[in-house]
């Protein structure tokens, strides 16, 4: 067991939120076509409010603080907040950014303050594709320049490559670029519905056939046979497992102080402008409801062939209408990976068949063997 895993187990037993993502703003200087946020400022927390929240998070035992957005560098007080988080409150800080506002000066300052990593969104190694997703001409060049500045300061930089039909053919190029620059690279084939539940952007995601090809790329998954193997049936242990860390050792705070189990799980559990963070974390009915979920309690999924190996996201399931239900996007991933349809997919198929009650009339008369009209 790794040290981090050991600490997470301990935090879980003690009900300590080891890791929190705090979005400092939803404002952004890019307009990515798949983004799940609206970019207006509806009343962001002030510097004082954020520092007070950081005090509360530190007292609650939070160790890893991910600062994200929106674009974090759009906040004029960003470095003041970061410096407070690092040097006054000793958080391990991770940053998520598009990096287009990071030049040599900012990179040097980040090194001096010290951050664990900087994750930069990169959609392609080709400007016409990347900039076509961010809708900002020149954004790829600026993001790559920033990655170079950060790397030259000895900082850990990770390219985060969200895969969509529009850019999926370019992930080998992004990985090669990361390697050339000495950086890490992660891929994510998940397009998240808008925070308000609007699912219209989901069509941008990779289709099943494309995903199937990605999951068979040995450069990506290693042993294809092992990665795409038909899953073993769930046993007592896997059915007692927690679905994920959301609400257990991790949570998310919006720029307006709303607390959610995860950035991808928009179930409101309280607001730090009205309540203490720990009061929400420990006593919110919604947070405790999320905590009570075990795989064996899930509707549909318990009988699914993938129950022991599925990456089911309870937040995506919640956005589909039931946090104890299936997440169709993860069903599709399991299907693309193994070729075995999920219980949810089979149930939907049966339902669809039952719904066919009206058949189209033939366009021309059908003549029976006897010559009579059918």
């Amino acid at each position, binding site marked *: 067991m790794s*040290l*981090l895993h050991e600490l997470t187990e301990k*935090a879980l037993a003690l009900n300590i939120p080891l890791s929190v993502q705090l979005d400092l703003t939803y404002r952004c200087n890019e307009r990515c076509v798949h983004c799940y946020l609206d970019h207006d400022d509806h009343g962001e927390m002030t510097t004082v409010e954020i520092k007070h929240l950081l005090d509360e998070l530190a007292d609650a*035992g939070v160790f890893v603080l991910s600062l994200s957005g929106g674009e974090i560098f759009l906040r004029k007080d960003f470095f003041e907040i970061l410096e407070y988080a*690092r040097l006054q409150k000793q958080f391990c800080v991770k940053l998520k950014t598009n990096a287009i506002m990071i030049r040599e000066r900012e990179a040097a*300052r980040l090194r*001096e*303050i*010290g951050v664990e990593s900087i994750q930069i969104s990169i959609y392609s190694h080709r400007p016409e594709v990347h900039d076509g997703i961010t809708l900002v001409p020149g954004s790829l060049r600026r993001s790559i320049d920033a990655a170079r500045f950060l790397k030259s300061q000895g900082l850990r930089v990770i390219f985060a490559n969200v895969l969509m039909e529009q850019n999926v053919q370019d992930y080998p190029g992004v990985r090669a670029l990361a390697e050339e620059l000495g950086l890490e690279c992660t891929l994510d084939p998940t397009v998240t519905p808008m925070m308000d539940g609007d699912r219209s952007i989901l069509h941008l995601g990779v289709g099943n056939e494309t995903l199937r090809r990605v999951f068979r790329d040995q450069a990506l998954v290693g042993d294809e046979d092992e990665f795409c193997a038909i899953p073993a049936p769930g046993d007592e242990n896997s059915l007692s497992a927690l679905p994920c860390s959301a609400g257990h050792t991790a949570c998310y705070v919006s720029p307006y102080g709303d607390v959610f189990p995860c950035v991808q799980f928009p179930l409101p559990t309280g607001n730090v402008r009205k309540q203490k963070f720990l009061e929400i974390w420990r006593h919110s009915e919604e947070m405790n409801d999320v905590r009570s979920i075990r795989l064996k309690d899930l509707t549909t999924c318990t009988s699914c062939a993938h129950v022991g190996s599925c990456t089911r996201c309870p937040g995506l399931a919640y956005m589909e209408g039931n946090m104890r239900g299936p997440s169709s996007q993860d069903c599709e991933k399991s299907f693309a990976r193994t070729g075995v349809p999920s219980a949810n997919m089979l149930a939907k198929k049966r339902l669809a068949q039952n719904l066919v009650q009206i058949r189209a009339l033939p366009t021309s008369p059908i003549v029976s063997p006897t010559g009579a009209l059918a």
Partner: protein
Amino acid sequence: MSKLYVARNPRAAARSLDGEMMIMSSRDSTLFTLNKTATILWQSADGTTPLDEIVEKRICAEFEVAPTEALADAQTLARELAGHEILQISETPITTPKQPFGDKW
């Protein structure tokens, strides 16, 4: 023998989990946990209290250990943690822990 002073490196990430410190080195992001003795040393490392005084007043007072042996262990530990840039050590008091920024910031 000259005194040794120890100060927490403000750039290390640190949090107490059930009485034991989790610490991440600012140099290479290596994660450490400190046992109870090392946690006391970390928490007492204010830069102005000499290490022998920390050992005598905080460690020997709490654990049944001979002062000479405890001090030798503490010195080894302090140097090891300084190697990971978790602690700063000096033969003179560290009155102002090294500030990571110049005036320009």
